[in-house]
């Protein structure tokens, strides 16, 4: 090849990690140019490090992966199985899915989870709001209207996950919450002055003094990178938003985070790691003790 001319045309860029393959993409987190293989490697390795540093699992643990059929939980199931094999975590993995009863959304995504069960070889359990509470989200929305649906659904889902986890007799639940989600939640809680929630939302492990602890292995993983991973690996996932989400207040925070990422990608991590949040957690200590007690008493399985 020409030794004198600099590679100006696209496609002549080299991966900055292996310096051999052509760069296929720019990493959203760091804007580095990287080839596919190295991207998979660095993506999986970063998650592995997060799991190790935060001691998320121990050998012999039975882990339920909260599976909605969306990109986050599909990639989580895929990567966890892969890392479990590669690094011998010694985990028993399960898929746990919650059916809120939202027609045109949940019924479609559940089909995806059933396919995941076969594709990844992980046993699946589905719990539904209708069975647990006698209500579907559609029925609830008809009752309360289109505002504040997420509040109801979120509370019910957490309990449903706890119930399902108890039925599966697992030690922990892993959810696919990514860095963008957590940054949005932090912002929302600041906007609403909800200091008690702020103290819980950035912890990588929550609910340790409740029935089932929950962890977020994707806490430092950018949503765009999850999408990239799923896209390049051609993973099977369901990519539509919940039909009630356009009215959610979270939409404001989401727009803002998306715009922010364009200007300064590292800002998302800055929000999550924010000292301000840590300091406010100390201030909200008393309140969160109260809410923890409430949450636990409502999560105990019925006689």
């Amino acid at each position, binding site marked *: 090849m020409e030794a004198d001319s600099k590679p100006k045309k696209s496609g002549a860029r080299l991966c900055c990690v292996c310096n051999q393959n052509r760069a296929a993409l720019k990493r959203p987190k760091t804007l580095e140019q990287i080839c596919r293989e190295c991207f998979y490697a660095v993506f999986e390795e970063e998650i592995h490090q997060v799991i190790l540093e935060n001691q998320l699992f121990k050998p012999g643990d039975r882990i339920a992966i909260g599976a909605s059929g969306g990109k986050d939980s599909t990639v989580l199931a895929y990567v966890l199985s892969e890392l479990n094999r590669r690094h011998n975590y010694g985990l028993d993995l399960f898929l746990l899915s919650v059916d809120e009863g939202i027609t045109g959304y949940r019924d479609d995504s559940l089909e995806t989870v059933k396919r995941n069960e076969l594709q990844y070889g992980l046993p699946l359990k589905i719990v539904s709001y209708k069975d647990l509470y006698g209500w579907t989200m559609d029925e609830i929305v008809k009752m309360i209207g289109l505002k504040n649906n997420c509040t109801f659904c979120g509370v019910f889902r957490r309990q449903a996950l706890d119930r399902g986890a108890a039925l599966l007799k697992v030690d922990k639940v892993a959810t696919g919450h990514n860095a963008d989600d957590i940054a949005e939640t*932090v*912002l929302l809680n*600041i*906007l*609403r*002055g909800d*200091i008690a929630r702020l103290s819980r939302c950035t912890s990588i492990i929550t609910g340790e003094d409740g029935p089932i602890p929950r962890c977020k292995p994707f806490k430092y993983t950018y949503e765009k990178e999850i999408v990239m991973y799923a896209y390049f690996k051609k993973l099977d996932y369901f990519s539509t938003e919940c039909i009630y989400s356009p009215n959610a207040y979270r939409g*404001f925070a989401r727009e*803002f985070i998306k*715009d*922010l990422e364009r*200007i*300064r990608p*590292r*800002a998302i991590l*800055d*929000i999550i*790691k*924010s*000292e*301000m*949040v*840590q*300091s*406010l957690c100390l*201030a*909200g200590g008393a309140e969160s003790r109260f809410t923890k007690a409430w949450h636990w008493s409502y999560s105990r399985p019925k006689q």
Partner: protein
Amino acid sequence: MACNSSTCNSSGCYKGYEEEEQPKPNTKAAVNGGNSCQNLCVKCKVNEPVCCGIGGENSRFCKDCFKNNLYGKFKQAVTYNAMITPPDKVLVAFSGGPSSRVVLQFVHEMQYKAQKNYDANKDKSLPVFGVGVAFIDESSTHSFTSQHIEKAIEDIRLIVSNLAPPSKELFVVPIESIFSSDGIDGKERLKELLDAVSDVTGKEDLLSHLRILLLQKIASENGYTRIVLGSCTSRIACHVISATVKGQGYSLSADIQYVDSRWEIPVVLPLRDCPAQELNTLCSLDGLKIVELLNGPCSGINGLVSSFVKVLQEENPSRECTIVRTAGKLTPFHFNRVPEIHDSNVPSATRRHQKRYTLKPNGSLSSDSFCPICNSPLKKSNFPSSLRSHGSQQNPDLFASACSSCQFQILPKDPSLMEEFLSLLPQQMITKAKHGDQGNFSLLREQIQEFLFSDGENEI
């Protein structure tokens, strides 16, 4: 509803503002009594309302009550935090916008009243505080026509000269004066400095740090003891969000309190509880002239946050207050209160007066070290031990002594460019970098003052 107490300072009290004017009863409305409250001011229930507060339809005020409400918040902030006391000389930072116009107006009203009291009083022990106004001319950083800026300065001179008696000195200072070399030299150096910062947000933030340093310089060279900023609730809410997003969470509580004494001249924010929307309304109601200098829209993160907060505010008018209240739960720093006066030359009546109001917060953060660029307090753990040996006086390690946010968005990424960058910074920042771990001596001294003998040996 006229208050008869002479010491009443409650926020809704008329007495604090204009003693002469009584609310003029509207004979039509007086008959109404309880029904159709929409036609009456929610406060005095006598006059017809002419404007709304941020509560929308639930907070319709008549002109007087609206003014009194805002002035009351201002007065309460000043009194409760001992912001302005009789021996002070107060420098009002005036940008031309509505918030600084209102704070200038309110400070003037307060001074005017104090002057009248002084003239009427036989006992002249408590003098009237002095007021000056500073306008920083940033036209060298933007492409304004000189005509535009000259007209603006003329308007500002007119505004200030109309706010007399008592008369106020006006300082119109170009931003490049921070370099203590005038004219083209300063302009060039400023341009080079700003060009050396690649991050758009970093550039804007560096400019605002230079601005506050210049205000400090003007105040200190002219004997002022306080700097008053017109920062309102909206601006503080934007600062809360942008600080969170820029990873400046540790120092956030230092910037959003009523008083900030980490500077040589303490900076006070008396309009902290006033929303921008109400300040705007007051300007139009009261015919307060604003000088709109279009400094260009803020781009980068600052602009994004400001439009975000604006959208939220439209959706829910109390959002800004909630944000500021949330951040208000953070522990303030030990320098977030006015320093006590220990100077025995100051009359004892004044010291008694100030001591009565000095708050001692229960539980405040202490900090010995500050970032040389943005002056934000640094966590002790961030401080590398290499600086404990005072580094080298010729080449202070700027990078190591700066906060992580300035390291990322302002300082050059390439270490070889650091030397040059250092040469472009104003002297005040270099000095701070050299004496990085010596902190704020006056505050340390304050803590041990009662044990020191004033025989000169203890002067550092």
